[in-house]
């Protein structure tokens, strides 16, 4: 469904992505792992043009385009097929929870307000926040804000949802509620690409795991293969550092 090939991206002469390929099929939950600075977030942001790649191609269903030459019309088209969940939520501060979810439907897609509110409430119910529909972001906890962020993403029924470290900014006790929502979406067969540092969660939801380091994909495969017997030493040392208990478990 979504394929990107040979993505290169430089920031001030530092090469952050050095020719990355990634394929996402319908129903996939692709989890991208890797140390900080490995280019995971940049890759995700290149996928919906929040960053403009210097080189690379994208195939999205029937659409085929060069990443660096895509017109603003093509970019808008891709953005309407995707949704993005940010590390720091980025809820619209001047909108209530419900308005945060509906503005992409009414303003962005021309849906009637009544219809959009029905869709929006359904999305809020799904993330367990129907009772907070009329609260402003400033009145919500971090976990609640991120769940509204997820409701905002699913309401537009995107072909793929991109998650950029959705729990990294949360207090530890709030991480669970957000991960539970994402697990539920995985169960329903939603197509997702997730950058995360939550290993247990990654092992649980992923259908495909990608390990990145220094702007390259080092290794990828099924979660069983990647977590139990990774081939590359770079992957192993990363997992050892982030999952010390794995040594004892084995």
């Amino acid at each position, binding site marked *: 469904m979504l394929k990107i090939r040979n993505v290169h991206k430089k920031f001030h002469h530092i090469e952050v992505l050095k020719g990355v390929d990634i394929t996402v099929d319908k129903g996939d939950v692709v989890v991208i792992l890797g140390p900080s600075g490995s280019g995971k977030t940049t890759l995700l942001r290149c996928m919906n043009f929040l960053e403009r790649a210097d080189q690379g191609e994208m195939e999205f269903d029937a659409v085929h385009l060069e990443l660096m030459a895509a017109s603003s019309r093509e970019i*808008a088209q891709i953005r309407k097929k995707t949704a993005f969940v940010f590390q720091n939520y980025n809820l*619209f501060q001047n909108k209530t929870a419900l308005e945060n979810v509906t503005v992409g439907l009414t303003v*962005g897609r021309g849906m009637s307000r009544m219809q959009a509110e029905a869709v929006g409430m359904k999305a809020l119910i799904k993330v367990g926040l129907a009772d907070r529909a009329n609260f402003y972001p400033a009145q919500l906890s971090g976990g609640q804000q991120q769940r509204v962020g997820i409701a*905002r993403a699913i309401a537009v029924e995107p072909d793929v949802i991109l998650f950029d470290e959705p729990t990294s900014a949360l207090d530890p006790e709030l991480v669970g509620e957000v991960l539970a929502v994402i697990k539920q979406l995985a169960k329903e067969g939603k197509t997702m690409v997730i950058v995360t540092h939550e290993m247990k969660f990654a092992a649980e939801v992923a259908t495909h795991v990608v390990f990145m380091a220094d702007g390259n994909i080092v290794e990828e495969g099924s979660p069983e293969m990647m977590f139990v017997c990774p081939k590359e030493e770079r992957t192993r040392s990363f997992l050892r550092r982030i999952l010390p208990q794995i040594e004892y478990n084995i």
Partner: protein
Amino acid sequence: MELDYSFLEKTLLLVLLAIPTTLKLTVVSVLAAAPFSLFIALVRLHRRGALLRLVTAYVTFVRGTPIVLQILLVYSLLPSALKAGAAGLGLSVDVFALNPVFYAYAVFTLNTIALLSEVFRSALGNIAPGQMEAALCAGLTKPQAYAYIILPQALVSAMPNLCNLTVNLIKGTSLAFLMTVQDMTATAKIAASYGYNYIEAYLDVFVGYVLVCSVVQCLFHYAERHVGRYRLVRQKQG
């Protein structure tokens, strides 16, 4: 010292009757300047090159010269320039018969464009870049993102500076007497000149400005509370 109370009263009424002129100068200037100011603010935030240098030079020039000088300059240059322009187009317009208030609108608008652009620039700069990114990801176009997400938030953080600017402009319009516009100050001065009751006249003008500026500050206070509802809830909780 003996004050002429009957003159004080009579002139106060005249000054109060001139409030609409002062307010008109202020409101017209701010509204006329707003779109240009927004444009300059956006250029200064997001553009490079010739356009940026041009608008920066404009803002620097306006901020770097006393408004009295701007008034004198425009008031002596603009009529001649207009006359030359009209003659060039073959029109026979008597530019010197033009109501001086239009020159006042011109000066105060040109001045406000520069000052207001800085108010907008600081307000827009305060909005986290993530708000625009989230709007684009939600399927909004850039103009839609500005209209529904960015500008409503920028307006709230601009309110205190906007109030400052408006109140300063109200006081600044007192210089319109230089262009023979009969605002509050000019009205009082003219009244005083007949019998040299300057102290009374100045006291009346004083009262007039305090009154107008107090009301405007109150209005801004309520406006800020209204457009910033979403922030107040946080303050109450915190």
